[in-house]
């Protein structure tokens, strides 16, 4: 069984927000809802200043704090490692938003589908209601569609998450963490990718290749 994950090379990331826009276009998220987003950090003081872009998305943790607090089991972990939300079960308590230490969850502030007359019908079959909590799901529909067509997620465009495809500098790599020969596994090993806030104990499936010194040394 695959375990989907991602590795993000912070040295390559140029902060263009192509991933943010691609995600919004693919998933048609509402105003103020960002399933992936870039945080922009300045470090140091003049003249020794560096700038780091930190793409954040759902980490699809193995030890999911959001799933632990969800009273309705709307948040659940799939066998392939993707942490998904069942919108029909969400009771809008927002406990998962508070529990997520990576700020990856957002409350949908409005209908994701405009109701103005003449607007073309969207391809998604579920209308997302205001108040429901959303987050990145690794574009699981794309993955499932790709697998059904015999494609390999992580290597082929139509089976990749939209953010991975959109990145102009290939900072994001997606693939099967359980396959030691996959591109993602090789990158994690060779470039010593790390986890964000490993001390939380959440065991994320998203790895980062930090700029400069290791986060473990900070």
């Amino acid at each position: 069984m695959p375990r989907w994950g991602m590795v993000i090379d912070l040295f390559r990331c140029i902060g263009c927000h192509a991933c943010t826009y691609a995600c919004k276009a693919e998933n048609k998220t509402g105003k103020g809802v960002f399933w992936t987003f870039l945080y922009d950090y300045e470090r140091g003081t003049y003249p020794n200043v560096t700038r780091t872009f930190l793409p954040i998305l759902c980490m699809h943790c193995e030890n999911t704090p959001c799933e632990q607090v969800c009273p309705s089991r709307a948040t659940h972990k799939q066998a392939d490692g993707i942490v998904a939300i069942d919108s029909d079960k969400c009771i809008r308590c927002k406990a998962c938003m508070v529990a997520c230490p990576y700020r990856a969850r957002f409350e949908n502030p409005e209908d994701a589908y405009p109701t103005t007359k003449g607007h073309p019908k969207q391809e998604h079959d579920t209308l997302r209601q205001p108040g429901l909590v959303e987050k990145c799901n690794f574009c699981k529909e794309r993955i499932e569609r790709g697998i059904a067509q015999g494609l390999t997620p992580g290597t082929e465009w139509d089976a990749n998450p939209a953010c991975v495809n959109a990145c102009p500098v290939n900072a994001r790599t997606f693939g099967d963490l359980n396959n030691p020969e996959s591109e993602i596994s090789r990158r994690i090993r060779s470039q010593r990718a790390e986890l964000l806030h490993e001390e939380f104990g959440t065991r994320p499936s998203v790895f980062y290749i930090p700029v400069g010194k290791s986060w473990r040394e900070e």
Partner: protein
Amino acid sequence: MGHESQTEWGWSIAIEIFCGGTAGGAYILSALPYLIFGSTIFLTGVVASLFLVCISVFVLIAESTSLRRVPRAFSNIKSPLTVGAISLSLFILFSTATVAIPHKGSATGALSIVVWLAVAASLLTIIYPGILMSFMKGIPLWGGSGPSFLLLSAALLSGSAVVTLAGGMGRLNFSLSQVTLWGLVIYGFFLFIFIVTGGRSSKTARISVQWLIKGNLFLLFMIGVIAMGWVVPFTLYIVGMVSSSPPLLHIGSCLILIGGILMRYSLMAAAVRMPLLSDDSITPTYWRYH
């Protein structure tokens, strides 16, 4: 390009935690004479606690904004929220039964069982928010057992204030005002410990404490929670007990309740999240987006 952080928990959760905890405290103190001394249950206090817990449940349902989804809150027994939903439901059930069951004759055995069950449900109702807060790994201020002890002491204190206001003075065979005074001492102790330990832990927790004692939340916390919610009631209670002046005790009780709700909101508002990069990365640019 930045984005505004969404508001997660605010006044509604503070009101829910306040009403639920106060209801639990009020019930325990109303039933205490019956459980310990075998005297009558202070039914006015029980009714007041029932009223408060119903407000708590109403606020929770209103927050959910969809009545048909509410039963799903009972689906995950491992979630503190589900435990809270169950405890609130049981508390309503058993406190209603406390009022409904005759207090004389053959029903006294059943009443005793119901009261003990209601006390257990009350304690769960008081404790579950602190347990829920300890699950939030990204908010250092809420870590550990500090919030649980603070909310427990606050709930018993505000419960005693409610019982006092409900006419507990002179109707009970133990000194409720002494209980409230001790409640103030214990609550003050846990509040002090909470602030001191928060101020000495991670940088993020220190920022939270600074917000409370000299930052954005200074007015709310230092004036509302500490001065109005603790110092003034403490003074009023001492003066009121020495001079045997019930009005002073009632005013003190009102201030305890106001301070209690402000304390719960302060806990919500002061919840600074751990920065995504190391603490050293907290710069003006960072704060623009958070």
